[in-house]
Each structure stands twice: as structure tokens, then as C-alpha cells.
């Protein structure tokens, strides 16, 4: 049950897990709040194909199309960068809370118990 934290046996220096995750989160944050401003606004592969072959009109608005973060913009924030940056940061936070929580929960469950 309690997972033994044994030292890895293979030789070589290793980056502490906390550092690795920290760097990864920092890179993700930079992508979401800075690089995202420079993302291509062109239609993606599926949208482009739908336009080319003439079935783009079939797309319907999502039921949450009016949500405050729809399309990675923050409702009521005029500044384009800030609008995307806030949406991105909130998205990372939600994803992180759910994913870290879920994975941690699953890791703590005994492996073969049902």
C-alpha cells in the first residue's frame, strides 16, 4: 500500500522529481500565457477540410459557447493578450487540479483489488 520510495538503482545524476515537474509547469505556463498570443489563427486541419469540401456549415455552436472562457478568451477583458493569458492560466489551473488529483488518487489505490 505505502509505496516504498526506494532510491533508483541505475547510476547517473537525476533531476529531482519536484524540479522536473516545476520546470514542466513553468514551460506550460509560458506556453499558455505568452506563446499562445502568437498562435496561428488559421483554421485547423479539420476546419480547413470542412471548408474545402463544403461541410463547415454543419458545425453547430457548443451549448457552452457563451461561457466566460469560450474560445480561450476571458469575457469582459478588452486587452487581447490579457484575455488569452487569463483564460490559459485558468485552464492550466483546472486541468492541473483535476489531473494531479486524479492521478494521485489512482496511484494510491492498491493495484489489483476488484
Amino acid at each position, binding site marked *: *500500500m505505502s*509505496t*516504498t*520510495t526506494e532510491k*533508483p*538503482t*541505475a547510476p*547517473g545524476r*537525476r533531476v529531482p*522529481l519536484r524540479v*522536473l*515537474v516545476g520546470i*514542466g509547469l513553468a*514551460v*506550460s505556463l509560458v*506556453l*499558455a500565457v505568452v*506563446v*499562445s498570443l*502568437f*498562435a*496561428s*489563427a*488559421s*483554421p*485547423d*486541419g*479539420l476546419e*480547413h*477540410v470542412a471548408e474545402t*469540401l*463544403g*461541410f463547415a456549415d*454543419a*458545425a*453547430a455552436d*457548443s*451549448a*457552452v*459557447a457563451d*461561457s466566460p*472562457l*469560450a*474560445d480561450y478568451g476571458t469575457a469582459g477583458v478588452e486587452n487581447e493578450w490579457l484575455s488569452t493569458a487569463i483564460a*490559459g492560466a*485558468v*485552464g492550466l489551473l*483546472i*486541468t492541473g487540479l*483535476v*489531473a494531479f488529483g*486524479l*492521478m*494521485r488518487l*489512482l*496511484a494510491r489505490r*492498491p*493495484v*489489483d483489488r*476488484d
Partner: protein
Amino acid sequence: MHVPDGFLDGPTSVATAGVAAVAVAAALRGARRELDDRTAPLAGLVAVFVFAAQMINFPVGAGTSGHLMGGVLAAVLVGPWTATLALTVVLIVQALAFADGGLTALGTNITLIAVVAVWIGYAVVRLVQSARPQSRRLIPVAAAIGALVSVPAAALAFTGLWAVGGAAPIDLGLLASTMIGWHTLIGIGEAVITFLAVSAVLGARPDIVHAARHLTQQRPLEVRTTAEASS
């Protein structure tokens, strides 16, 4: 390639929702075998990184763009079951909070991105790895090849779904070739990002990379089998 609402009819969307539900239920079991105290934080990070990376559309020419799917990146780093879960979390957050990908199309998107792209891509990775199972340097290359294949594979799967319940009569051969063409281009970007990310994590912590576990773990370290036997 987040599918919006309206592209596929009701019965097809219900069917893909069923496929997605079964896959996620299986993944909740399978992921417990892949996750431990050291890999769980990496799995959380993978989901966050994929969410962030999917915000960055890169141009692939002719006014078209694409972004990382992340299925193979996730599968190689944390295992395919955990990858299915991580990608599902990302897709649910995107659909519910960001209106990215339809709500009735959520099952379709989970099926295409969290199941088809992950598992087809991972199968390719394993196949490439089997050429030299003991090579660490082959892992990022295998991951890149799997990533390259995973994107057009999902595009082809979409074409199959369109054949069953597409909203308009489109020539299927034309749809398949156009989808595969564009998504192979996007797959090149997928391969580059996957290669870089897998290389980075492999360089820092080869011991927690799923696809490299057999290289660093020595037999006596199988803590879990011991715990299992004693329970």
C-alpha cells in the same frame, strides 16, 4: 482536430460516447497499474502540458494550422492507460470551459484523440522499439514516429465516423485523402514536439519514463508484486 457539435448525427455521437465511456472505465483500472508515487506527478504534468500546447496552433501551410494532440507523448511518458485518462481530462476541460470541441461531440473527441491517437500511436512506438528493445536513444525516435502516425490515424478514424453518421454526403475517398494529407503535415509538428518533450524527460529522469522502465528498473525493485503477494 476537435470535432464540433453538428458534424456527426445523434446515433453516431451516442455510439462514440459509449466507446469513450468504456475506454475511460478500462483506463481507470489500467492506469492504476501504471501509476505510483513517482509517476503520478508526471502524469499530472503531462495533462497540464498538453492543455497548454494545444493552445498553440502552428501554421502548416495554405492558411491551415494544427496543434499537438499529445497522445503519444503522454503514452510514452506515463503509459497508454494513463495517457487515455490524461487526454480525457484535457478534452473535458476544453469542451466544458472553453467551448473547444462540441459537447455532444465530447465522446467523439475522446474516442479520436484519447483512444485512437493514443493506442495506434503507442502500438507504433512499441513496434519501432522492438527493433532494439535495450536502446534508450531509440525511444524519442520511436515516440516521434508513433506521434507522426497517430495524427493521420485519428483523421482516418474521423472519416470512418463520417461514413457512418456524417452531416452531409461527402465523397469518402476524397474526405479520407484530404484529412490524411493535412493531418500528416500536422503530424510532423506532432513528431517534433513529441521528440523534444520525450528527450527532455528521458534526459532528466529515465527511471520514471514508461517506455524506458525496463532499462533502468532492476528485478528486485518490483515493489508492487511483493505487496500484491502479501495481501
